[in-house]
C-alpha cells in the first residue's frame, strides 16, 4: 500500500506567476527508499513540502488535486498531526536547530507532542545513539561542525519516530567523507527500521546505489518515475541533465563501443569494477 500518494497535484505559491508543481501523480510505497531529483528549480522541494502539510497550511497558496500521507488527507489535517507521521529534514541544519543543547533540540518535537517524560528520555537517547552523536548531547548545536549539526537535525526528526522521513539535500554542506557517512546512516535506518525514506538530491554518484525508486522532475512535472537502473540508463534522464553516476556513464559508453558487460546496469564504482574485472580477465 502506498504510504504517500498524490493525485493530479498542482500547486502555486502565493504571488507565483505559474504553478511550481503541475499535475503530479506519484505513489511512494511503505518502506521504500525514494530519490527525487531534477534540474534546480524543478519543484522537488515544493513537492516534499506537500508531503507533511507545510503546503498548504504554512505556505498557503493554491493547491489542486489530492495528497495523502500515512492514510491522512494532508489538506484536512493540521501540521502537528502530520508531523507525527512525516518528518522533514531541511537543506540547511541551521534553519532547524535552535536549542542550547543537542539533547534539548532532539527532545523539542516530543515535548510539543506531549510525550511522557520517561518515554521522551528513551526516544531521545535512542535517536542520539542511532545517529552517532550521543557523546555530543550536552554540546550547543551552533558549536558543532556541519556534519554533526546535520546528524543532530536528523536525530531530532527520528525521535518523533515518523513513518516517513523526507530529507532535502541533507549533506550539501558536508565534506565528501562526512556526506558518505550520513548517507550510510540514512540507508541503515531505512533497511533496519523500515522507515520510508524520501531523499532530494543532485549528487547521484553518492546515492543512486541505495535507492529503490527514482522520481525525476522537470519544470514542475514528473517526467520519469520508476526503477533506478532503468531510469539512469535511459536517454531521457541524460537529456534532462540529471547527473548520471560516472560508473553508469562509463558502462553506457562502453556498451555503445560493443564491449559486452552484461545487462545489469551498474550504479556504483564497486559494481562497475566487478563488471570490468569480468571482461578484463577473460
Amino acid at each position, binding site marked *: 500500500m502506498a504510504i504517500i500518494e498524490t493525485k493530479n497535484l498542482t500547486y502555486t*505559491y502565493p*504571488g*507565483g506567476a505559474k504553478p511550481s508543481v503541475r499535475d503530479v501523480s506519484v505513489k511512494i510505497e511503505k518502506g521504500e527508499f525514494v530519490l527525487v531529483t*531534477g*534540474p*534546480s*528549480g*524543478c519543484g522537488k*522541494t515544493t513537492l516534499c513540502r506537500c508531503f507533511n502539510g507545510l503546503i498548504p497550511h504554512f505556505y498557503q497558496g493554491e493547491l489542486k488535486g489530492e495528497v495523502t500521507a500515512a492514510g491522512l488527507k494532508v489538506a484536512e489535517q493540521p501540521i502537528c498531526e502530520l508531523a507525527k507521521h512525516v518528518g522533514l529534514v531541511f*537543506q*540547511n541544519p541551521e534553519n532547524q536547530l535552535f536549542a542550547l543543547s543537542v539533547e534539548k533540540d532532539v527532545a523539542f518535537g516530543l515535548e510539543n507532542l506531549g510525550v511522557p517524560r520517561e518515554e521522551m528520555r528513551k526516544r531521545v537517547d535512542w535517536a542520539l545513539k542511532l545517529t552517532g552523536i550521543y557523546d555530543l548531547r550536552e554540546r550547543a548545536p551552533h558549536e558543532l*561542525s*556541519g*556534519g554533526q549539526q546535520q546528524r543532530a537535525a536528523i536525530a531530532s526528526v527520528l525521535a518523533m519516530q515518523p513513518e516517513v522521513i523526507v530529507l532535502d*539535500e541533507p549533506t*550539501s*554542506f*558536508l*565534506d*565528501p*567523507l*562526512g*556526506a*558518505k557517512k550520513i548517507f550510510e546512516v540514512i540507508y541503515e535506518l531505512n533497511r533496519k527500521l523500515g522507515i520510508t525514506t524520501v531523499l532530494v538530491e*543532485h*549528487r547521484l*554518484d553518492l546515492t543512486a546505489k541505495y535507492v529503490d525508486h527514482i522520481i525525476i522532475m522537470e519544470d514542475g512535472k514528473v517526467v520519469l518515475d520508476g526503477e533506478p537502473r532503468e531510469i539512469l540508463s535511459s536517454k531521457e534522464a541524460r537529456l534532462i*541533465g*540529471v*547527473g*548520471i*553516476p*560516472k*560508473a553508469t*556513464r*562509463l558502462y553506457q*559508453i*562502453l556498451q555503445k*563501443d560493443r*564491449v559486452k558487460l552484461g545487462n545489469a546496469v551498474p550504479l*556504483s*564504482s*564497486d559494481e*562497475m*569494477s566487478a563488471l*570490468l*574485472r569480468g*571482461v*578484463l*580477465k*577473460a
Partner: protein
Amino acid sequence: MIEVKDVHFTYPNGVEALKGVSLTINNGEFAAIMGENGAGKTTLVKHFNGLLKPTKGSVLVDGVDTRKVSVATLARKVGFVFQNPDTQLFSETVEEEIAFALKNFGFKENIIKRRVTWALNLLGLVQYRKTSPFMLSGGERKRVALASVLAWNPKMLILDEPTIGQDYQQKEKLRQFIMQMKAQRRTIIIVTHDVEFVAECNPRVLLMRGGRMVTDGEARKVLTNPEILTQASVVPPQIAQIFIKLSDLGLPKNVIDVYEAREILLSVLEEQAK
C-alpha cells in the same frame, strides 16, 4: 597574482583556523581548495579579498599587502561569491540585485543594462528578471549571487561552494564559464566538496586539513591518491575509484575522466583480443 606568506589566523573566540599557510596563485590559474569541514578553506579565501587580515604573516594581491587597502578597493579586483546566497542577497528583484554593485562602482547606465542582461543570460535567469530573489529555489538563488559578482567582471574570482544545489547542466555551464575566464588569463579559485565537478575540470587542487595545506598538485594526481584524500576527508571520484580497484590488473591509477577511461579500456581490450 595572490601571494600567501606563512599566514596564521585566530578568530576572536580563540579558534586558530590557519596555522601557517604559504602559497602562490598566478594570474590565469584555476585552483580548487578542498578538504574536511573546519579545515580553514573559507577562512583562507576570505584573506584573498581582505575580508580577513592575517594575525601573522601576509597576503599580497598583485603585490599589494591586503592590510594596506580597504575591502572596497580590493572588491573591484577580487570578486567573492559566498557559500550561502542568503548572506548576500537583499534586493527586491533579481535585476536590481545584479545591478547593485555595478551602480556602486559607478558604471554608466547603458553599460549596467548590458552587463545585467549578459549575466542573466549566462546563468539562465532571464525569466526571473523582475522576480524577488527570495521567491526562487536554493539553486537559483545561488546563481543570482554568482551573477551579481560576474557582472562586474573582476580580475580574480573566488567561489565558495559554487555547485551546491546545482543540477548537471548548470554545473556544465559553470565549468565552461570558468574555462573561458581562464583563457582570458583571469584567476578562479573555488572552495568545494564536489569531487565529481573537480574531476571534470582538472584544476590545480589544494588540499587542506586542520588549518594547514597538506597537498598541492594537479587534480588527476591528488584525486587518485586515496591515502592523502582520506586524511582530508575527501573520497576519490567514481572513475578514479574504479581504476584504483582494478590497479592489480595493470591499469593506470591516475584516471579521473570518463572519456579517458574509455580510451584506456578499449585499448587494453583490443590488446587482449590479439
